[in-house]
């Protein structure tokens, strides 16, 4: 049997057309196939230091994301981070990290396909998210660099407010919930879709 480069499909690979029809105030695209590793290590431990040295980063504290280079580090719990890197980096990173950790107690687990990532941008981002997210997304309360694991509508998500895009938000959602979340997002955008210049309907 001849083996060609095997094709990959991300959870929302069929959704581009629907995302393209969103109102101008909201751009949504899936960032497929990102490398994602769960790192569990006691903060302040030798192993944590080894990880930081290995990646050239400081592990961010609660509710924060750090993005020193091509590895973005998302805080997801008091001894837990999600390392996010470009496609195809898992083997390299796993090897480097495990080597750095050595005999200390810390674990790294490849969870790249466990979640997919949605990149949201545009002036409507916060308005649309406010329809399903109970957290206060005002930039004064949730500034860039925030990383919140919470619920959006009925889907568990990790919501990251990006540094480089003032209105940019990334949503990491478990793969099995991705189509639910996408369906919800489209529905939440319904009223902004027509003729109103993306401001939504003002009721008058």
């Amino acid at each position, binding site marked *: 049997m001849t083996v060609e480069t095997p094709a990959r499909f991300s959870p929302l690979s069929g959704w581009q057309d629907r995302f393209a029809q969103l109102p101008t105030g909201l751009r949504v695209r899936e960032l497929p196939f990102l490398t994602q590793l769960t790192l569990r290590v006691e903060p302040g431990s030798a192993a944590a230091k080894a990880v930081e040295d290995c990646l050239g980063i400081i592990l961010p504290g*609660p*509710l924060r994301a750090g993005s020193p280079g091509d590895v973005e580090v998302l805080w997801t719990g008091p001894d837990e981070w999600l390392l996010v890197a470009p496609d195809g980096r898992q083997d390299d990173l796993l090897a480097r990290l495990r080597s750095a950790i050595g005999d200390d107690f810390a674990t790294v687990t490849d969870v790249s396909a466990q979640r997919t990532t949605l990149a949201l941008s545009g002036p409507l981002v916060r308005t649309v998210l406010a329809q399903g997210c109970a*957290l206060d997304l005002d930039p004064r309360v949730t500034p860039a660099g925030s990383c919140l694991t919470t619920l959006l509508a009925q889907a568990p998500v990790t919501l990251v407010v990006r540094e480089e895009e003032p209105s940019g938000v990334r949503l990491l959602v478990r793969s099995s919930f991705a189509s639910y979340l996408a369906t919800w997002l489209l529905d939440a955008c319904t009223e902004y879709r027509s003729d109103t210049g993306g401001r939504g309907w003002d009721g008058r």
Partner: protein
Amino acid sequence: MQLIACPWCGEREEIEFHYGGQAHIAYPDDPYALDDEQWAQYVFFRDNPKGPFAERWVHSAGCRRWFNALRDTVTHEFLSVHDNRAERPSRTGTAPAAQHAEGQEAGR
């Protein structure tokens, strides 16, 4: 929809949490040293006070961490929450007194 202050994530709506019942119920040191009635106390019997109650909660939709809280069961108000990693269990057998104040080292 109450807010519960996760020790790690701060205030979140209660739907992000799951309830774990009474806190500080240690697994018995030696279950086989207990008679059936004592064992039943561990398995089935929990305090049910009207007023402050030390409970376990887990931030299921957030950081997945279990923590302890002191909550008033009449007003539903959380009087305190604390990271249970600061409170190692002391193996004192079956359920000790339920009510204790924040920071007090109790027989979890």
